[in-house]
């Protein structure tokens, strides 16, 4: 039953919201990995980011799309937890300093690893937080660890522009705007985790440099 709810949510709410109420202007959509295992990494400014990224894929890929998000934030109440886990099909991840007790013996990336093994497509925001509106924070190292384990899974960088002004952190008022999406070429493995993380961050910055400059 839950797959039906999930499908209805995407067809009736999420996609109309992203494609009609917002509207997307996507550059190089052909660079998106249509088959897993793959990882899409993007900058993070708004709760809408994951919905936008997931709407870039055809509906039949829905079951394979797994946004990765903070357990401490999204599992804090049962209703939100049900929505994010069942409907959005999110993989919760424990953040250090997230206020929840971390289990030392379990790898926090284990669910991500299993998902990649099943050939799923992860949607990750390596900044780890929505942070300050429209500023790119420092990337964290989780994706590099996954890439090391799955060298054949492409890591595709995406830059999202405008969502920080649609539904910024701390706002409940939703302001429709057309969103620019820039898809980059896959980031290749550099041999070292830290270098790879830096390369990924640079790839998103390079995409950001292509975006039209906004005044004010």
């Amino acid at each position, binding site marked *: 039953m839950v797959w039906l709810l999930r499908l209805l949510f995407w067809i009736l709410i999420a996609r109309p919201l992203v494609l009609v109420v917002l*509207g997307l202007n996507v550059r190089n959509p052909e660079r998106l990995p249509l088959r897993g295992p793959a990882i899409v990494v993007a900058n993070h400014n708004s709760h809408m980011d994951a919905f936008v990224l997931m709407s870039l894929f055809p509906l039949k890929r829905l079951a394979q799309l797994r946004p990765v998000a903070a357990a401490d934030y999204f599992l804090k109440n049962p209703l939100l937890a049900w929505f994010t886990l069942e409907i959005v099909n999110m993989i919760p991840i424990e953040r250090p300093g997230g206020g929840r007790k971390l289990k030392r013996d379990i790898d926090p990336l284990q669910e991500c690893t299993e998902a990649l093994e099943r050939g799923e497509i992860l949607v990750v925001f390596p900044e780890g937080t929505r942070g300050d509106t429209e500023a790119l924070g420092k990337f964290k190292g989780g994706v590099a660890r996954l890439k090391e384990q799955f060298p054949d899974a492409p890591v595709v960088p995406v830059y999202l522009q405008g969502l920080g*002004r649609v539904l910024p952190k701390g*706002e409940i*008022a939703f302001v*429709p*705007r*057309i969103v620019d999406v820039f898809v980059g070429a896959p980031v290749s493995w550099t041999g070292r985790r830290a270098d790879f993380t830096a390369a990924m961050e640079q790839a998103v910055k390079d995409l950001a440099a292509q975006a*039209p400059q906004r005044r*004010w």
Partner: protein
Amino acid sequence: MIDFDLSPNVGYALLGILGLLVVASLFALVLGRIRRDKDYSELRLRIRTWWVIVLLFGAAIALTPIFAIALLGFVSFLAYKEYVTLIPTRRADHRVLFWSYVAIPLQYYWVADAWYGMFIIFIPVYCFLLLPARMVLIGETDGFIRAAGTLHWGLMTTVFSLSHTAYLLALPAAGNPVAGGDGLLLYLLLLTQLNDVAQYVWGKTFGRHKVVPKVSPKKTVEGLIGGILTTAAVAVAVAPFLTPLTRLESLGAGLLIGVSGFLGDISVSAVKRDLGIKDSGNTLPGHGGILDRVDSLTFAAPLFFHFVYYLHY
């Protein structure tokens, strides 16, 4: 229960427009076959988008007015959204922008309710005063007048002006015995869009002297005059079937739509030039954004509306 309400004249006019589209599609097809060296994909895309627009509007007009009013409201929403995306806005104004969107369904509700008094002052008076008031309460004074001004200009053109197209449907049927509000709306849409195409074709063929080189370098005097005269001629020819206008009045309407369509077109061009962009978006394949398609209407709709309203209602 969905009622069809379509006066015969409006039905014939819609068929005529579909006929024009068939001719245009065949023309593009033949052109593509003869001139294989040239790329006509842009033209084909443009015509295909015209099909979608015409079928959508044709269907909405053929149904009860509420469908066409809702569709025009949706066009306003898309145009305003494009505008909000393009203009520089202050982050502090997030809530103000939210409330400005709320004005769109309200404005079209006044139309559906045929509440003329509210329709005509809601944006020019209430939104004009209340949105800046909300800005002031937030307390950011840096760029206040620019923010309030750009926001109001957007609401006035994309919502207030465009909603005059919809109000044609709310006018009492007795004012236009031959085709009702549908006839007036179709007349206005047909002439503004035809005017765009005619000015383009005349300009492309005979254009020598630029009108406003700084704003829109491709616009020529020849295109402008040829377009206006073509629009006026069609306006006179079609008026008896779709409008209550006399021959002299319809000539006036044609000239008015021709000139105001041009002014609307170059005003949106000026906005884009000011912001340093080419197309307002990519919502309509081959046309650019919605704003690029409705630019002439933003001027032509209120002026034509008041022209007819003064003379016949």
